């Protein structure tokens, strides 16, 4: 081991996350490797190792001949301080080599508040932050993940983005890079060529011009770059790579279990949900495929827990037969099967009892809004009656704890909607009093509210966010209306969600703000221990950027949107229609009931949406 590293590890918390060596990691002989990729997750090891997307792409890249992909995570603050003091540059876990020596540096971005981690990791690696400061093919930085659908705040730093699902696109990019390296291309030539790969967006090939009112006036593609970059998807998930043989961490991570992705996309169309629109169309895996993959993954990893994941697992058509088969296997092998994201409207008692046979998981609902009117406006098609019926079933089946998730600040929300949350909580308590089998054990309700953040590619992408002060007023209004000791109420911080809104709908002018914030200590913003709003406010002031312009302004219907070069398959006209329906408190049926023609089935020259 690197002597510098060995000396600092005794000084930091949880050193096991900084050394690699886990079962299932990929080690290659350097003489067989022509292309080295540093695959960076801009958050801690515990978060990044829980991410299934990273495991998929790690597996795919390492299956390529001559390519070695290694993992890199953001160090916790204590480790970062030690690394800086010892002048130990950021390294990849497998080889413990500095990533500045790698050919390609890739990031996967799932959360706006990890943008500063990206910059901080580049800095820690000794790689220049700005793309324009990096010349030559060596050390090209690219990024993908759901946040890449609005790449603009990171346009100054990332050489190119891959939009959509990366299983097919990533090898195409790597092969092109290999050729460029062998033929000694310039960086400019490579970027022009990579922009021709479907789904690749090269920000430096687009000029953004602003009007006098500060909004975007025009986006001009340069050097033959495509006018629209359309996201890539995998047509047939049964044929897609599944990381059955994947790394098993030697230290505890957030989701320490086997993850089985049952389908992609979502039939629901909740109007605030970015993933719900960006991951369309719906493409399931066959239950037989899933069962085979589950057994293979469990046997390989030795995990004692498996999770069926997707945006809404209870909408999986073959859930019952799959759950039945898995349950038998899991019971025989003492494995815990967990089924999250269950929706109130189709969570059957039968299924609940089956799950209970193995282990009692908690009961979770995300009604998101307190009144039927607002739930209709956001198209969260769940009724109070359904929630209370499910609760009654659960309470009589022995459950005694409920988790409830809501949002405050949704478009059209009034005080009546806020108080409706307290009302629903009260009704759940009454239901428990009527149905509980063992009242002595008490009821525990964990209630959480998030601060609504308008996101690109949702019907609410044009909406203004309410101010942090107004959000806090609504939090206190709700707090004042909750009277039961059974309720533990927690709410998201207002400052963080305000920034999230700025970055989510931001444009290129935020680049300097990000760089300023990072140079003045911003990092790990998603963590309360590190988030410092003052740094950000100072950064906005220093760069002459008004954050309210991005978060609290209603974007106009005909406005040029910073992210409009990207096409996720769902038409803007569809999103606008959904927005109008929201204001009329009208719901749109789920995609299984009725196709509303969002356009996502036109991707890849036509794909079957199996809602």
């Amino acid at each position, binding site marked *: 081991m690197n002597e510098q590293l060995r000396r600092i590890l*005794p000084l930091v918390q949880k*050193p*096991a996350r*900084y050394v690699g060596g886990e079962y299932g990691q990929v080690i290659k002989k350097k003489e067989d490797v022509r292309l080295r990729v540093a695959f960076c997750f801009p958050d801690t090891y515990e978060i990044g190792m829980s991410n299934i997307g990273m495991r998929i792409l790690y597996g795919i890249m390492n299956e390529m001949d001559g390519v070695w992909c290694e993992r890199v995570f953001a160090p916790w603050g204590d480790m970062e301080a030690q690394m800086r003091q010892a002048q130990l540059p950021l390294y990849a876990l497998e080889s413990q080599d500095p990533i500045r020596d790698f050919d390609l540096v890739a990031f996967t971005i799932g959360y706006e508040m990890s943008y500063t981690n990206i910059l901080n990791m580049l800095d820690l690696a000794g790689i220049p932050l700005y793309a324009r400061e990096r010349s030559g093919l060596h050390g090209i930085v690219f990024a993908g993940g759901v946040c890449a659908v609005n790449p603009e705040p990171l346009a100054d730093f990332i050489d190119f983005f891959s939009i959509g699902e990366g299983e097919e696109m990533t090898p195409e990019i790597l092969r092109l890079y290999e050729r460029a390296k062998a033929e000694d291309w310039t960086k400019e030539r490579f970027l022009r060529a990579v922009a021709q790969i479907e789904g690749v967006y090269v920000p430096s090939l687009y000029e953004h011009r602003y009007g006098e009112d500060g909004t975007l006036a025009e986006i001009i593609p340069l050097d033959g770059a495509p006018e629209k970059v359309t996201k890539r998807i995998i047509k047939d998930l049964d044929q897609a790579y599944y990381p059955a043989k994947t790394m098993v961490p030697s230290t505890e991570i957030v989701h320490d279990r086997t993850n089985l992705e049952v389908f992609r996309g979502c039939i629901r169309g909740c109007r605030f949900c970015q993933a719900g629109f960006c991951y369309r169309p719906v493409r399931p895996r066959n239950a037989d495929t899933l069962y085979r993959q589950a057994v293979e993954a469990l*046997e390989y990893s030795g995990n004692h827990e498996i999770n069926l994941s997707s945006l809404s697992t209870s909408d999986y058509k073959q859930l019952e037969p799959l759950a039945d088969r898995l349950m038998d296997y899991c019971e025989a092998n003492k494995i815990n099967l967990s089924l999250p994201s269950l929706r109130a409207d189709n969570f059957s008692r039968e299924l609940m009892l089956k799950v209970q046979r193995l282990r009692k998981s908690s009961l979770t609902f995300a009604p998101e809004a307190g009144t039927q009117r607002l739930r209709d406006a956001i198209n969260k098609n769940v009724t109070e009656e359904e929630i209370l019926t499910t609760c009654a079933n659960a309470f009589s089946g022995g459950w005694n704890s409920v988790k409830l998730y809501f949002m405050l600040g949704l478009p059209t929300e009034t005080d009546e909607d806020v108080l409706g949350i307290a009302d629903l909580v009260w009704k759940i308590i009454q239901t428990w009093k009527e149905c509980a089998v063992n009242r002595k054990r008490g009821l525990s309700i964990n209630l959480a509210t998030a601060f609504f953040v308008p996101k690109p590619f949702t019907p609410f992408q044009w909406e203004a966010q309410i101010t942090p002060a107004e959000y806090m007023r609504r939090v206190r209004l709700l707090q004042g209306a909750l009277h039961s000791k059974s309720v533990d109420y927690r709410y998201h911080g207002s400052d963080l969600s305000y920034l999230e809104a700025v970055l989510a709908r931001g444009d290129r002018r935020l680049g300097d703000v990000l760089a300023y914030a990072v140079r003045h200590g911003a990092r790990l913003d998603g963590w309360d221990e590190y988030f410092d709003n003052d740094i950000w406010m100072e950064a906005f002031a220093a760069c002459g950027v008004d954050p309210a312009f991005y978060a609290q302004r209603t974007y106009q219907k005909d406005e040029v949107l910073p992210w409009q070069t990207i096409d996720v398959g769902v038409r803007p006209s569809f999103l606008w229609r959904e927005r109008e329906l929201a204001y009329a408190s009208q719901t749109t049926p789920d995609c299984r009931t009725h196709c509303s023609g969002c356009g996502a089935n036109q991707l890849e020259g036509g794909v079957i949406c199996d809602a």
Partner: protein
Amino acid sequence: MPRLVFEKTGDSIWISHLDLMRVFQRAFRRAGLLLKHSQGFNPRAIVSIALPLSVGVESSCELLDFELEQPEPVTPERLNAVLPQGIRVLDVLENGRKLKELTHLRARVTLTYDHGVPEHAAECIRTLFRRESLVLEKRSKKGVSQVDILPMIAKLEVLQADDDTIVLDAAVCAQNPSLNPQQLAAAVECYLPELTPDTVTIRREEVLDTEGRIFR
């Protein structure tokens, strides 16, 4: 109960005691061996590792007791094929001795000096450990107490291994009370601050019974 003897070296020394139990619980499954589980609401695979090792300490004599749902012979090879880097099973015993008979452990504490071992350092350290008593502060949940570590050192040799390193080869009490070999280095740092090394590395070499025989 069956017992594994395993070593923990290289980067695996950074795995904590609790995490190491999880590593083995999974490794048994990977090897196709189902461990016996605890009863109750939240069944857990039963494995027990004797004398938790501090993070960052190497060892060649770790003991893990386990019980299988269906008893069958286990070979080191079978587990080694599925263990992470640095953890290697050396031996599998059908039945281990009672743990309370494990009384001492031998440890090798290496003090490294980047700019060479200071003059007469080995001699000074030898003299230090020949004192009547050697009191160190011990921090525990109950607070800070003063502990004389000398009665817990059964044997100690101090040698200068090369220009940069001094090795303390020690046998110390392992249980009731126990002395963490780290304390030997701490004693040097506390009483001979001018001999504070740049790095300290520790390796647990062997576990022993009261007679000083190898414990298995």
